[in-house]
């Protein structure tokens, strides 16, 4: 997911060419052109969403269940801990992402030595190739004091064993570190591109008026980045609610010191494949979807993402 999200803001919010009405031609051709995509959208976008909706409101025999599935999963003793875990992770991860990505992008952009700026971007960007299970595996090594390249640092922080590092209280930070390492670089490159698009005259005018670098960053660059930051927020938020592979692998590698129902998505998986309760799983999936979309709506409205300018 991470890599893909990164490009859209370049094009996303400000394009206006779509205003021009398309030529009223080739209607039959158009249907041919969109047919395969429409088929895929129906099969793997619309239909599963509707199916989840139906499942969430029916019981195992297909009868209408009202809100029974929802009260069941919400009443599950594993539900609220999972919600808390995911929420805590999201807060820490989003704050870290927004602050450090913006800061690093502005700093790298301010570096005038071209090869240095370019190398830095590459160094930040490359870990993005290791997504999913690979990055988690790598971080299992880094966080295990017996093998870690930074075992000195871990010991200095008071961690002598792997189990201590991945104590439940540390996990939101651990997952943030993994996610930041993998995903931040792409966003830094995007923000860098956005900074390049700020018109030279504006910056020059500010400098003539006596603004220093910090004032320019705060007064001009940051407001101009607002849409991009909201876009980053939306994508990262939506993806973050779906936390799965990190706790799953950690659970496996720690002999269940990390529970296998740590995140909501894991709980949904447990419902579906351990308890054979697909209705309960659908209820959790639906809750997750609603939360992700609702939180995204906040970013969209507050961040002015789809405003035209």
């Amino acid at each position: 997911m991470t890599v893909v999200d990164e490009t859209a803001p370049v094009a996303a919010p400000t394009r206006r060419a779509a205003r021009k009405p398309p030529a009223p031609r080739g209607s039959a051709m158009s249907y041919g052109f969109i047919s395969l995509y429409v088929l895929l959208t129906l099969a793997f976008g619309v239909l599963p969403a509707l199916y989840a909706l139906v499942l969430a409101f029916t019981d195992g025999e297909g009868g209408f269940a009202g809100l029974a599935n929802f009260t069941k999963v919400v009443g599950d003793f594993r539900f609220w801990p999972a919600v808390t875990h995911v929420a805590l992770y999201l807060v820490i991860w989003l704050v870290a992402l927004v602050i450090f990505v913006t800061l690093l992008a502005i700093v790298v952009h301010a570096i005038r030595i071209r090869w240095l700026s370019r190398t830095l971007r590459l160094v930040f960007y490359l870990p993005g190739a290791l997504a999913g299970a690979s990055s988690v595996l790598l971080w299992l090594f880094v966080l295990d004091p017996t093998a870690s390249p930074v075992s000195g640092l871990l010991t200095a922080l008071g961690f002598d064993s792997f189990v201590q590092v991945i104590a439940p209280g540390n996990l939101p930070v651990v997952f943030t570190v993994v996610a930041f390492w993998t995903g931040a670089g792409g966003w830094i490159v995007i923000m860098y591109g956005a900074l390049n698009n700020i018109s030279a005259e504006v910056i020059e005018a500010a400098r003539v008026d006596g603004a220093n670098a910090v004032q320019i960053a705060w007064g001009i660059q940051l407001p101009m980045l607002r849409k991009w930051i909201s876009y980053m927020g939306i994508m990262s938020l939506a993806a973050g609610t779906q936390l799965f592979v990190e706790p799953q692998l950690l659970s496996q590698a720690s002999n269940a010191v990390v529970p296998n129902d740590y995140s909501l998505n894991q709980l949904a998986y447990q419902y579906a494949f351990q308890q054979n309760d697909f209705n309960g799983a659908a209820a959790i999936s639906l809750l997750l979807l609603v939360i992700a979309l609702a939180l995204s709506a906040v970013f969209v409205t507050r961040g002015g993402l789809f405003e035209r300018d």
Partner: protein
Amino acid sequence: MTSVHSASPRSRRPGLSGWSGRTIVTVMVAVFVLFFAIPLVWLLLATTKTARGLTVGNPFSFGSLGDLATNWDQLFAFQDGAVTSWIGNSAVYAIGALVITLVASIPAGYALALTEFRFRRLLLVLTLIVMLIPNTALVLPIFLELNAVGLIGSPMSVILPMSFFPFGVYLTYIYFSTSIPRDLLAAARIDGCREFQVFTKIALPLAAPIVALVAFFSFVQNWNNFFLPFVMLPSSDGYPVQVGLTSLLASTPAFNPSSAGAQSVQLPTLALATVVSVLPVLIVFLVSQRFLVAGMTAGGTKE
């Protein structure tokens, strides 16, 4: 890194003034460089060591090529060469989905941008919405749907859902609606081109960069996908390498003491597995980074 950026005059960039400010910034950048670089460098070095050398020796020393070869042999001997078939599976899934994605999304983006038809707006809005839905959110319902038609366990259960890639349609749509002059298409029509020829002869060649961009994102995402194949494929024979890694992890005594036995995997072998599992993506990243950023900002610079 980019041809686009080089066009920008340097004078526009705010400089960092003040000695103390400079120091703070330098330290911060240095810390982040170490943070991003150390794990990667260490991982590459770890593949050249013995299990003992990994825990005892200097973390940033080079082991030996002989140990690398030993680790390599051990990795590919794991479960009679399971790793080889996982990599093969990954390639089939990622490339299969990539092909369908391109065939589906490039014409769709073109039609959305440059032609008029009923439900055009609806399809556009739908694309925006499904783009915001995280990939993993629909995996369980898709499992049930494919289960109902008896596809679970077949390669298609992974390829088909992965080939649905609304983001690719969106990128193509943006590109066609901002970067292709309509006059050009109109001229082609006047010259007697039929609609299909306008697309294949005029629009498609111009869209080469965006086709490559969509292909890149689709490939990387498909290759790294974990949750979907994890759910859809019940047997190890069908695993892509990302899911296969969990089998290796489960056989590593360092993380799973109960697994000590004939098939146990040592840490350097696991490190090598991690490198091997991302090698195609890493190569694609390195090869395409210049063109990538140019492509990503293309929508922003051409008007």
